[in-house]
């Protein structure tokens, strides 16, 4: 079970191997593919485009804020910029990134399945996403939207002059893409596990995606119909949240956050799954408290639905409800804390290799711990009345979402890059990139905590009446520059590695798991030559395992076969 095919039969690098990439080279074969791996790669390319768009908008916002009176933009344009940043990053990047890219690619591989349960639905979900994204781009091009990504009524339903309906349509369609993916994942996890792969042998990545899918299933339709009601209110004057109709705008916030708070867990749970995989692999140790991490995923998924009220402590919601939701929010921190402690304990007596994926995973820990703990301020009734709606919140959720999700996405991409593309990337650049991102991140968002405590409201364009804000804003913008450079580094060397990277062996990290041990160097179209049978627990690592490949073999142009 420990030896892979390739080690016995080293690849002849000149001979063309048939895998999911080389099986067909036509454009058409990519765009009508039903192969989950190809769809995953399509998703990867698309989310990166949206990430770029969202980052440019963020760049404008940060640049604008270096001066108390703004730099180049009008207030209306500024509003459209931060809304574009929020909408694109959340609806088209963060919610999609890990599940649709890594989940799509690796869930069937980890389960020992030939494909997801419904491959056509999977392709449809990609095109829904693409369609939603196009609507989003059209909305951006045709003037953008200025309500903030939260679309609070009655600003969005009655007062805004921007492309609210188009943007909502985009989010609505993308929501259905998420639902299709979630249905696919749930069915696949339930029904398509390989023989012997019991629930408690599943990789934690799968557990995390299961919890995520359930949240998507239960939450997404709620926000979809809520936003649709706002659009309908604008178009046909059928209003449910409009004060003009006797409605209550706070009800919109209830319904919106009923999904949008759990949505945070849609972003962070898969990230936690990725980190569990990587830490176990590079500590050469079984994950400490496997059951607790798995259960805490489900606990986060369940409790995550009972905390939405903490977005509205200052909204005039009833005292009783505020207290209930504050309590639940304090408690939802516990499962996350359990995970962090268990990851740390996994390192104990480990055989730790600080490879690039591991570096990113540790970076994830560093950012997520701060992001998670600052959530305590936001859950707290007393403190939140001061902090809600300020930059403190902005900093907090960027620590969770950017620090958590993006670091984990990068970690995952680096971890599985050899499997996805069959190429290695240069280790040294990987670590440099990670360091730049990590420090740039702190530079950008640490000052925002102080800004928030000082009382700078979010979404402010001018602050000439409070000059003490400027120093922090300038520092934050400088950090954003570092962060931007940091994000360039992996993009550059990963793209270069496609051509110049050393050819990766089937299992360069000597990792456990069906996706590493039972597949070809790059998986074939239906993943496995024969359906594997699982006989052992997940993460059955030992210190006697062969180490991951050494850094010198990962340089551009290196030849991998030297190793064997």
């Amino acid at each position: 079970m420990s030896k892979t095919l390739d080690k016995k039969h080293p690849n002849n690098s000149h001979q063309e191997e048939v895998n999911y990439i080389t099986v067909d080279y036509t454009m058409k074969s990519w765009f009508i593919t039903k192969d989950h791996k190809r769809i995953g790669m399509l998703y990867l390319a698309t989310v990166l485009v949206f990430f770029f768009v969202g980052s440019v908008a963020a760049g404008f916002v940060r640049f604008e804020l270096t001066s108390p009176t703004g730099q180049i933009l009008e207030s209306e344009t500024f509003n459209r910029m931060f809304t574009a940043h929020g909408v694109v990053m959340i609806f088209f990047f963060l919610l999609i990134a890990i599940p649709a890219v890594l989940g799509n690619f690796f869930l069937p591989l980890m389960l020992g399945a030939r494909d997801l349960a419904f491959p056509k639905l999977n392709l449809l979900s990609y095109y829904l996403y693409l369609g939603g994204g196009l609507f989003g781009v059209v909305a951006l091009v045709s003037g953008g939207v200025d309500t903030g990504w939260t679309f609070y009524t009655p600003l969005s339903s009655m007062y805004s002059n921007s492309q609210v309906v188009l943007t909502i349509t985009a989010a609505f369609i993308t929501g259905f893409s998420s639902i299709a993916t979630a249905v696919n994942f749930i069915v696949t996890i339930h029904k398509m596990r390989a023989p012997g792969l019991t629930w408690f042998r599943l990789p934690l990545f799968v557990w995390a995606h299961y919890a995520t899918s359930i949240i998507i299933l239960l939450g997404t339709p709620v926000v979809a119909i809520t936003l649709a009601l706002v659009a309908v209110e604008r178009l046909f004057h059928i209003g449910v949240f409009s004060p003009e109709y006797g409605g209550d705008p706070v009800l919109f916030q209830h319904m919106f956050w009923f999904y949008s708070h759990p949505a945070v867990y849609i972003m962070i749970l898969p990230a936690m799954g990725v980190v569990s995989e990587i830490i176990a692999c590079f500590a050469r140790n079984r994950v400490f408290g496997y059951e607790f991490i798995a259960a805490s995923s489900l606990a986060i998924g369940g409790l995550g639905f009972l905390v939405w009220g903490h977005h509205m402590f200052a909204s005039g919601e009833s005292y009783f409800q505020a207290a209930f939701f504050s309590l639940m929010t304090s408690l939802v921190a516990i499962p996350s804390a359990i995970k962090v402690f268990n990851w740390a304990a996994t390192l104990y007596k480990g055989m730790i290799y600080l490879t690039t994926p591991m570096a990113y995973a540790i970076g994830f820990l560093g950012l997520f711990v701060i992001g998670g703990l600052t959530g305590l301020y936001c859950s707290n009734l007393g403190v939140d009345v001061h902090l809600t709606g300020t930059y403190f919140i902005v900093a907090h959720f960027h620590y969770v979402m950017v620090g958590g999700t993006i670091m984990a996405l990068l970690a995952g991409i680096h971890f599985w890059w050899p499997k996805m593309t069959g190429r290695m990337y240069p280790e040294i650049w990987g670590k440099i990139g990670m360091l730049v991102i990590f420090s740039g991140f702190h530079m950008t968002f640490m000052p925002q905590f102080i800004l928030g405590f000082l009382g700078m409201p979010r979404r402010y364009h001018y602050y000439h009446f409070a000059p003490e804000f400027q120093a922090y804003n300038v520092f934050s913008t400088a950090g954003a520059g570092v962060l931007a450079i940091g994000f360039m580094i992996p993009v550059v060397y990963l793209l270069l590695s496609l051509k110049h990277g050393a050819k990766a062996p089937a299992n360069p990290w000597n990792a456990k798991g069906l996706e590493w041990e039972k597949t070809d160097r790059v998986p074939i179209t239906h993943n496995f030559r024969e359906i594997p049978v699982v006989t052992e627990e997940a993460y059955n690592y030992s210190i006697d395992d062969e180490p991951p490949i050494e850094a010198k073999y990962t340089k551009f142009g290196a030849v991998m076969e030297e190793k064997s």
Partner: protein
Amino acid sequence: MSNNHSEGHSHVIPIPVYFRTYLQLLVLMFLTVAVAVLAESNPSLREMSYLNNFVAMAIATTKAMLVVWIFMGVKYSSNLTKFYAFFGFVWFSMMFLVYLDYAFRKDEINTGWSHVPANALPRAKGIPGS
């Protein structure tokens, strides 16, 4: 690869079972209409509005259960399908936590909009003596 001796799938339910369910549904529907009409016409019953509400929703729920259980075949499906069939209904009830807000907003009563279109409402000017 098709196997024709499988146990777990394609329960062919005899038509009388369906027909009986259909009749039950119709009876329940007429019952709920009858209750509503009766409650409307009878002033003494009209006072018991909560009871009427309860009856209407109980009948609706029973009808829904019949449809889910027999017509949608959940009765004959695996436990997994049963779980997913009822999970949604259970989770939907989570939304009613919002009542925690509205039921306890003592000092902050939700009211209408002050800018009610003037032409649509009886004007205060018509009051004699002002």
